[in-house]
């Protein structure tokens, strides 16, 4: 690896990128549009308060009351208490023509202290998407805080949604999750979409062949493009944090713990994009392969909605997606300040980045064989 050649290629690559403008839109402008859009939609809906009927089966234990108090303090929810003696809360709500409910199970307090998993049942009406999102989001958010306090983020309290739960939960607040989620989104999409395209176009236009006639090596070429996407990621992260905080008061903090993800993420996805582009026989196939890889990852890794709100099987799927670890790590770094989680996620993303980089350099050929 020769730094001078890497720098030269970086400057030529950057010029081409900046001059064509399309890439820049996706890398910098698009995530901001998304923040503004999603932020606006969800900050409006959370201004209404929702009536929630609570059935406390834990005999009004101190911990259960603290939990409910925390929910109450969000001001998004009006709590009403329902006696455990009415039996099944779902049925009761249905009979009384009400929609949203929460069941605190018996043993809540002791299980919480003993760090035994506890399942909270949240009942919502799937037809009322805006209120059900708020209810599950708020309960989820408070549960997360309690998990953090007691077990450093390990899941004790979990939510059992009833009646087709709608995705769209907020934790602290939706916008707080949205910022790291969209940073992850742009770490994924800005290198993936353009690398898939660039690498298949370069192959078709024989530009790799042209570069192979110079001392530049494949690894140097890939490294310089990675550096470019790291720069873009850092810039877009700064902008997104500023917009999130400025426009919506997002409670995210800039932490040095984010850095590994802003570096390793682009390494991983630039390499993956190159792999996808170079195994495809033409740019059209490359675009299809790129989309097949990118789209599921884009929606299922916690970009727009926290993975903790996913039904079990979908959450399992999320755990095999590399972007999940990027976003999980960013959440830990920017929201919870949870060092342990960031380090584990850094390790996972780091290993994947090395594997994908090595695979890309190996599989991708400048010369026809």
């Amino acid at each position, binding site marked *: 690896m020769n730094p001078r050649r890497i720098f*030269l*290629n970086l400057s030529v690559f950057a*010029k*081409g990128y900046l001059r064509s403008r399309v890439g820049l839109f996706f890398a910098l402008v698009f995530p901001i549009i998304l923040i503004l859009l999603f932020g606006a939609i969800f900050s409006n809906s959370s201004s209404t308060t929702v009536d929630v009927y609570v059935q406390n089966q834990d005999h009004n234990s101190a911990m259960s009351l603290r939990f409910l108090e925390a929910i109450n303090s969000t001001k998004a929810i009006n709590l009403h208490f329902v006696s455990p003696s009415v039996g099944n809360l779902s049925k009761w709500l249905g009979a009384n023509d009400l929609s949203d409910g929460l069941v605190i199970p018996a043993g809540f307090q002791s299980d919480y202290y003993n760090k035994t998993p506890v399942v909270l049942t949240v009942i919502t009406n799937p037809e009322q998407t805006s209120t059900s999102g708020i209810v599950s989001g708020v309960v989820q958010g408070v549960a997360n805080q309690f998990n953090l306090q007691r077990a450093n983020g390990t899941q004790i309290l979990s939510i059992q949604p009833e009646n087709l739960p709608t995705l769209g939960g907020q934790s602290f607040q939706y916008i707080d999750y949205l910022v790291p989620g969209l940073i992850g989104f742009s770490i994924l999409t800005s290198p993936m979409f353009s690398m898939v395209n660039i690498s298949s176009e370069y192959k078709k236009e*024989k530009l790799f*062949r042209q570069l192979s006639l*110079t001392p530049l*090596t494949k690894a140097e070429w890939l490294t310089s493009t990675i550096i470019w996407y790291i720069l873009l990621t850092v810039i877009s992260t700064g902008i997104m944090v500023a917009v999130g905080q400025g426009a919506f008061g997002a409670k995210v903090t800039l932490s040095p713990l984010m850095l590994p993800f802003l570096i390793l993420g682009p390494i991983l996805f630039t390499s993956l994009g190159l792999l996808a582009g170079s195994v495809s026989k033409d740019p059209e196939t490359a675009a299809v392969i790129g989309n097949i890889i990118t789209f599921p990852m884009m929606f299922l890794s916690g970009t727009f909605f926290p993975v903790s709100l996913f039904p079990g099987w979908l959450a399992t799927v999320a755990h095999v997606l590399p972007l999940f670890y990027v976003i999980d790590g960013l959440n830990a770094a920017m929201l919870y300040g949870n060092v342990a989680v960031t380090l584990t996620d850094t390790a996972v993303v780091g290993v994947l980045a090395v594997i994908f980089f090595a695979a890309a350099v190996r599989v991708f050929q400048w010369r*026809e064989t």
Partner: protein
Amino acid sequence: MTEVIHLQKLVKDYGPLRAVDGIDLSVQKGEVFAFLGPNGAGKTTTVEILEGLRPRTSGTVRVLGLDPWTENKKLIHRLGVIPQDFKFFEKIHPREAITFYAGLFGKKVDADSILKQVQLEDKATDWYEKLSGGQKQKMGLALALVNEPELLFLDEPTTGLDPQARRSIWEVIRSLKSEGRSVFLTTHYLEEAQLLADRVCIINHGKIAALGTPEDIIQEHGKGEVLSLQAAPRLAEYLRTKVDLPVRSENHTVDVELSTNADILRVLNLVEQSGIPWTGVSTRRDTLEDVFIRLVGKTTESGDLGGAGSGGLK
């Protein structure tokens, strides 16, 4: 003399297709060597093997004493290459491209003097995508020059260019020769080969059909005098029924290959008898073009110069 290129029994298969079928040749230092053949003859395949862009199926290949496929990163420092259909990054202009390229080779160059050398100085800051075909090709040539190569490979550098652009590229090739550099040029323009090359290799269907100086080739493969008339093709049809000499017709020109001087009178008499109008009569010796047509035409079954091959002949 030193050998810069050495090929022995070079074979290249693309699946079932044998694109290069046992080529032996040797190019000396300082030589301009033209590889001439119709489209699909195997020129690009051979050149790409020499440049280290393609592996061979079998045979011996040495370029500047190195194996171009395995020792490619060593070799490129000493080579200048314009691939067929040269392309570059769309939004980079020639001056940046030259500086970039030279930097990769670890060379400091005066971009403007190279641009001047290829007569592209007035387009120094136009994006590549905005350049004309000829200007793009000149930029390719400029890139091939940045590392002061000993040996240049130019794969159809003038195909599709206007005469002026073609001439300026010829000029550069001549100046390269005068600097003692070796040039391996492929073309399907005979004129170009004849004007520039010390030696020519005519290749067809992956095999060498003729090799030597243009004079040697004409001597060896040419056939005496040719009588040319400007007349409609039906004159050729008429003559074919009357004489047993080879008669060709192309672009309103009818060529008759003569065996003896007496044939001239005989043919002209027949022309007169035919009553078909004609103008401009001349006799000439075979040119490289005649030889090329004969050699390449002979080896194609349909006799139409291997399809696209004829398109390149003017």
